[in-house]
């Protein structure tokens, strides 16, 4: 009774970092409540690192193609819930989780708390810490329904080191009836780069770079630091950089370990997308730039002098 289910995804057989994070959260939650934990994953997982999270069983389901579709997860989770009543279903609130969460909540008549970054135990029940107002506040939420969905905000809880591996039983679900009204016809992935939302270090450029020809400064520094690159809204709107690199209120929200902002003033809309970065470094020539107030380290100087010198210093191994 009271089984917890963690829903995982994988890329080419390896668990995604957001799945490892969901496993970390689910293991902690299940242990605290003294509940059994099982995982639900699409076929083709080769990664055994999930064995380090105290799973009783691993349920697998058939998936057509490399990336299982939302409809397949939905059918699999509904089938699993029909076999045994899960008390909590935990998954990453990545793009898959965002499509899945609300639909699952309706199908299973389950309360959903999204963007969860932690939990606490109060009077024998879990309260879930939900990030709201673009990270400017937290809401502690209770779930009152029999089944509850806990959707984990990526890069907020962190991946914990697993325990000694165990040997969960693998159980195949299926065959499943899949809703085929929507078809995925193509994937277009940016070549080789770590997705911005998963990057630990991000170097970002703003209008202070003056011209798209100067973008190389951002890229060279990013390359040296093995970082992803991002930009502010004016840079994306001017077409210097693709829209998916725009971080901020209406772009992507990111939470890297280190965010380096070059020539970005730090308007409140931009801060909304990056203020949960663990460490923020700001390079800007305007001492009044609001970004300095949100920064951990600041360099007030001309980026066209500071950044090339920095790149050279790193290259020289100083």
């Amino acid at each position, binding site marked *: 009774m009271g089984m917890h289910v963690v829903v995982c995804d994988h890329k080419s057989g390896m668990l995604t970092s957001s799945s490892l994070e969901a496993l970390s959260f689910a293991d902690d939650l299940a242990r605290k409540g003294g509940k059994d934990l099982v995982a639900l994953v699409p076929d083709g997982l080769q990664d055994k690192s999930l064995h380090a999270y105290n799973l009783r069983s691993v349920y697998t389901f058939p998936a057509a193609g490399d990336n299982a579709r939302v409809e397949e997860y939905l059918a699999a989770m509904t089938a699993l819930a029909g076999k045994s009543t899960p008390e909590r279903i935990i998954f990453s609130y990545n793009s898959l989780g965002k499509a899945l969460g609300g639909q699952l*909540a309706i199908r299973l008549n389950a309360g959903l708390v999204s963007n969860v970054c932690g939990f606490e135990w109060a009077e024998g029940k879990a309260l879930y810490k939900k990030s709201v107002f673009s990270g400017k506040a937290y809401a502690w939420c209770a779930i009152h329904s029999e089944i509850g969905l806990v959707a984990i905000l990526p890069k907020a809880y962190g991946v914990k080191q697993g325990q000694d591996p165990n040997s969960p039983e693998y159980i195949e679900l299926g065959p499943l009836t899949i809703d085929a009204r929507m078809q995925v016809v193509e994937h277009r992935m940016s070549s080789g780069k770590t997705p911005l939302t998963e990057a630990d270090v991000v170097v970002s450029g703003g209008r202070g770079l003056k011209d798209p020809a100067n973008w190389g400064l951002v890229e060279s520094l990013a390359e040296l630091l093995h970082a992803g690159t991002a930009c502010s809204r004016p840079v994306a709107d001017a077409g210097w950089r693709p829209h998916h690199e725009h971080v901020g209120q209406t772009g992507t929200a990111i939470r890297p370990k280190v965010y380096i902002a070059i020539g970005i003033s730090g308007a409140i809309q931009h801060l909304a997308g990056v203020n949960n970065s663990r460490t923020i470094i700001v390079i800007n020539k305007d001492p009044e730039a609001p970004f300095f107030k949100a920064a951990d380290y600041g*360099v007030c100087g001309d980026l066209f002098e500071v950044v090339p010198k920095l790149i050279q210093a790193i290259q020289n191994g100083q």
Partner: protein
Amino acid sequence: MKLLVCLSKTADTTARIAFDAAGVKFSEEGVQFILNPYDEWYALVRAIELRDALGGQVDVVHVGSSASEMLIRKALAIGADAAFRIDDPEPETRSVAEQIARFAEDRGYDIIFTGKETIDYNSSEMGSMLAALLNLPFVSLCSKLDFADGILRCSTDIEGGTQIVEVRPPAVISAAKGLAEQRIPNMKGIIDAKKKPLEVLPASSISALTEVVRYELPQEKQGVRMIAPDDIHELVNVLKNDLKLI
């Protein structure tokens, strides 16, 4: 094409985030409310573009109190044809989805748009719930949408790239940046909006399955440590020793 755009009201980005003394209620004092940008800039404008290209109508629906009517009029001024307000002073995500589902189920919409999230609670739950309630396909995080030969072709944002999906209407679509460009209402639009219908419908009571027990503000930053622009050595030191990046 018959289109519906779900509109949400949200605290302005620049609003000071504060709660009452007990930490259980968002303090609305001095807060300006706006139409949720994802609903207004992307969902609504793309719906208007589709109507203008293909014919049909754009309805907007909002679940909230009469205080939102100015915001609803703005959507009419931008170009929606008719508005509906479901009169619920304290809407909660699931109840919003249920009420809009009941409203929409017999009205034969080809596409129902929502924004991908509101900029205050950031939940991204409503559209997905609405699709399940209406048993419609759900296109999540849609940043491009074309309609040809009876098929909607949508680009959707996924980690590290884009996924292209195809679906026949009817469908529910959550709008992300890129789907359209923000439009500012012009004077004619504002005048016309006053004559467009805004119908108020009674709310039904739906019990919530989750509850916010209290709010909390994050710890403040310790303050910035400034490094002189000519002290590159110190900056390298920070990257190397404090942050272990190199």
